[in-house]
């Protein structure tokens, strides 16, 4: 979007007011699309993605309040400013429109100077917003690259130090050994920091894929304790367990659960004195499974307890220096636990240790996640346009889950991983369309493939033997119907 020119949709049934308004908007240098009714307005919002909607509140087919509601549920991945217009006296209907989700209002007769000021204002805000999204994306990519690039030299540094410190390259002089160990320990700390930053980027960018499956917490806790044993021994701390047996399974991502436990255990060990015990308990409380990690360390200041699961929080900067840590571990822990449908908390009496708890529902009680007999159908959507991916995921949400990927290479691995049933793809920005479609058919391995694009035509689609939907002309309901149709055909074929 050019930051100063807006694409404005004008919805008004009366030509006598619509035409002058369109002329005004156009004279201000903006692009205008106009419609004569509410239903048409919703349709246009979906198809032509205007930047702003000027909406007459009173139209015979659908009133403005209803239009606002439908527009808000159709456009969820971006902000579409809606300015309502009315010639009625009084403010009540404007107040109601704002309550229903409008952003602003104009009274008739419209003051051209006020219209100009408002459009300029929204152009600026939208410009800032898209700039911020671009910067967010750049930041994510930058952090991921940096984290990855940092690990390569770190591999050599830590490798060399590990070999030196273990005497593999010959015994070090007595005074040199502690130095090699200091360097190695701090290299490891740096490595954990990089892991945490990468996790954080993924979690906050909503890019972390959890592999939820039924797991036994008993077995996972055994694994978690074993994995942290070496660290505990180095600190002179004993890890003990008291685990309920034959517990029901929970539905979670086992790798991420181990990461949660590693955070809680290392935290407990870090705050324990040599000779202390850290206790890990597994309890069944009705339909809930509780894991407790108890230490006998100094405990947690009540004031700090409230914010300890927030980002970059540590009790104080001296604590940071004494214990080492990034201030990210508990925050990442909380986000991971919550993503898996659980909760995390802490109980502590200052001076008498702390107990961290995490709780998950048992897999059988979890009505939110239907189990394996009826898995949700999955569609793989290949499109380089992130916004289109978000939109289609939203649209198809009632029907199937949508896994969006940017190119064929990701498609190949995601298709195997997710067991996607059908493939939707836009050949635009994927190199030449013909080889792309040939490779696509190869990747799809017999699955139904729908092309969803503005960059191709009927002749091309029929030459490739693929179904084609024109992206800009396919409404939500048409796409939904096409996908439903393809899914039904697929499931009938599978039954045969």
């Amino acid at each position, binding site marked *: 979007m050019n930051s100063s020119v807006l694409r404005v949709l004008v919805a008004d049934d009366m030509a006598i007011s619509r035409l002058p308004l369109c002329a005004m908007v156009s004279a201000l240098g903006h692009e205008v699309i106009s419609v004569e009714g509410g239903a048409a307005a919703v349709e246009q919002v979906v198809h032509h993605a205007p930047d702003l909607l000027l909406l007459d509140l009173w139209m015979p087919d659908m009133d403005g309040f209803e239009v606002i509601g439908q527009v808000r549920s159709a456009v969820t991945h971006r902000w579409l400013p809606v300015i309502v217009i009315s010639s009625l006296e009084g403010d009540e209907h404007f107040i109601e429109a704002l309550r229903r989700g409008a952003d602003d209002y104009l009274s008739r007769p419209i003051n051209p100077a006020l219209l100009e000021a408002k459009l300029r204002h929204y152009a600026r805000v939208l410009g800032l917003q898209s700039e911020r999204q671009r910067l967010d994306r750049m930041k994510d990519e930058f952090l991921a690259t940096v984290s*990855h690039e940092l*690990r390569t030299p770190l591999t050599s540094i830590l490798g060399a130090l590990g*070999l030196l410190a273990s005497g593999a390259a010959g015994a070090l002089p007595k005074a040199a050994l502690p130095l090699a160990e200091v360097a190695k320990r701090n290299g490891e700390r740096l490595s954990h920091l990089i892991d945490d930053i*990468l996790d954080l980027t993924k979690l906050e960018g909503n890019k*972390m894929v959890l592999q939820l499956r039924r797991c036994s917490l008993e077995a996972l806790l055994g694994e978690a304790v074993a994995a942290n044993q070496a660290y505990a021994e180095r600190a002179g701390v004993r890890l003990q367990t008291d685990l309920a047996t034959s517990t029901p399974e929970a539905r979670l991502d086992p790798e991420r659960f181990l990461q949660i436990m590693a955070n809680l255990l290392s935290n407990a060990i870090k705050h324990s004195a040599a000779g202390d015990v850290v206790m890990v308990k597994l309890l069944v409380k009705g339909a809930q499974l509780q894991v407790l990690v108890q230490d006998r360390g100094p405990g947690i200041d009540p004031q700090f307890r409230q914010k300890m699961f927030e980002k970059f929080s540590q009790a104080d900067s001296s604590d940071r220096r004494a214990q080492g840590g990034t201030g990210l571990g508990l925050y990442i822990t909380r986000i991971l636990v919550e993503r898996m449908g659980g909760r995390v908390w802490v109980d502590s009496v200052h001076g008498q240790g702390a107990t961290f708890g995490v709780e998950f529902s048992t897999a059988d009680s979890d009505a939110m996640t239907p189990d394996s007999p009826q898995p949700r159908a999955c569609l793989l959507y290949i499109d380089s346009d992130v916004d289109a991916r978000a939109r289609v995921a939203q649209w198809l949400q009632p029907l199937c889950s949508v896994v969006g990927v940017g190119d064929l290479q990701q498609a190949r*691995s995601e298709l*195997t*991983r997710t067991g996607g049933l059908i493939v939707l793809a836009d050949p635009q920005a994927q190199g030449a369309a013909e080889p792309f479609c040939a490779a696509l058919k190869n990747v799809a391995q017999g699955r139904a493939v729908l092309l969803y694009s503005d960059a191709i035509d009927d002749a091309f689609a029929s030459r490739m033997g693929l179904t084609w939907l024109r992206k800009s002309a396919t409404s939500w309901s048409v796409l939904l119907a096409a996908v439903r149709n393809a899914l039904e055909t697929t499931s009938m074929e599978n039954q045969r």
Partner: protein
Amino acid sequence: MSDLRRVLCVEDDPDIRMIIEFSLATVGGLEVCLCAGGQLALKQAPVFLPDLVLLDVMMPGLNGPETLAALRLLPCMQGVPIVFMTAKAMPDEVEELLQYGATGVIVKPFDPMTLPQNIRIYWEHGRDICADL
């Protein structure tokens, strides 16, 4: 395949190559053939006849998955476990790499003192899979 003796290692970073050589040869007592890239590995494999291949993922020229696919076409590589090394440590990325047909994934930074043991576990695992076939 009686024992794990020869490891072919493909890694573009010369410093990491040195660490791996030290780890596998000096600590692990294994015979190591180092290659700076996938093309070289394809030439070396039929001569060196490795028991296991340790393969970096992100390399200029042929990348890890491409090298794996090309190695798999060589008659001498049938049933030889291939283990990826990667600095991308996220579980979903590890999962993705396994789908290329690798026996395992070693995450960077790795511990050079335990690397020989770890690849031996993968080698035994790979041998078990072949025995099952």
